[in-house]
C-alpha cells in the first residue's frame, strides 16, 4: 500500500501474515533457530517500508508512518498479535524506541553475504509506544536535506526488507 499526503504518493509499506511461510522473517528465524513461541499468533511481517526522501524527517516522521500503518492493521484485522521485521542493526536500535525487541543479530541470508537483524514487537506495546510521540507535526516535507539524513541513510539500506 502507499502513503498519500496532500495528493502526493510519498511512500510504501507492506504487511504479510506470518504463519504461511511467505515472509523473510520466518525464513531467517528458522535458520537462526528462533522458536516462534507466541509471536506467530496473529503475527504480521511489516516490510517494504520506503519513504520518499522529501519526507524523511527523522524518527518522528517515521513514527507517523508506522502509526498509520499499524492503525490500519488494527482497524481492519482482528486481532493483531505480533509484528515482525528484518532490518539493519542501525534501524534495530531505532525500532527499539518504538517497542520492538531484537531477537536475532547478524542472521545470514543463505547464499548471500547479507545479514539481517530480526526484530519483533507485540502489537499492543508497539502501538502504545508510537502513540507516545512528542512531536505535534509528525509527517511533513523535510525542510532541508540535512534533516532527512537519518532516514535517508537507513532506508537506503532497506528500512524493512
Amino acid at each position, binding site marked *: *500500500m*502507499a*502513503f*498519500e*499526503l*496532500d495528493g502526493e*504518493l510519498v*511512500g*510504501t*509499506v507492506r*504487511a*504479510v*501474515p506470518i504463519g504461511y511461510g*511467505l515472509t*523473510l522473517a520466518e*525464513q531467517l528465524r528458522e535458520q537462526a533457530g528462533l522458536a516462534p513461541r507466541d509471536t506467530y499468533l496473529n503475527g*504480521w511481517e511489516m516490510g*517494504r*517500508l*520506503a*519513504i*520518499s526522501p522529501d519526507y524523511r524527517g527523522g524518527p518522528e516522521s517515521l513514527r*507517523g*508512518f508506522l*502509526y*498509520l*500503518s499499524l*492503525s*490500519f492493521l*488494527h*482497524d*481492519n*484485522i*482482528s*486481532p493483531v498479535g505480533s509484528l515482525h521485521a528484518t532490518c539493519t542493526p542501525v534501524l534495530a536500535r531505532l525500532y527499539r524506541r518504538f517497542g520492538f525487541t531484537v531477537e536475532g543479530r547478524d542472521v545470514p*541470508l543463505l*547464499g*548471500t553475504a*547479507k545479514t539481517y537483524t530480526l526484530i519483533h514487537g507485540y502489537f*499492543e506495546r508497539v*502501538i*502504545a509506544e508510537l*502513540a507516545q*510521540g512528542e512531536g*505535534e*507535526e*509528525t*509527517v*511533513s516535507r523535510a525542510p532541508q536535506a540535512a534533516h532527512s539524513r537519518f532516514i535517508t541513510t537507513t*532506508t*537506503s*539500506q*532497506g*528500512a524493512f*526488507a
Partner: protein
Amino acid sequence: MLGHLFATPARRTAAWVPPQSRLALNQSAYELHTLSPGRRAARDDLVLRHLTTAEDIDSIRFLRSHIDLTHSAGDPRFEAVEKKETK
C-alpha cells in the same frame, strides 16, 4: 476514492486502549473498508491507500531502489508473489 483511503486516527495521548469493536477481515488482509467521509487525520493529512493505477505505480517506482530485495534475487516466485500490484 474514499473507499481506498485510510487516515491516521487521532493520536492517542494516553495508553493504547483497543476499541470494543473491530472490523473482521475475511480473506484478504489487504481488503480495505470504506471510510466515512471526513475521516481524515486531524493532525497529519496522511492517508494509506492501495495503488490503483499505472500512474500511481509509476510515481513511486523509484522507491524500489531504496528497498533491499537481496533475499528475493533468484526467487522464481518473486514475480507471482511480490509483484501483484503490477498485474
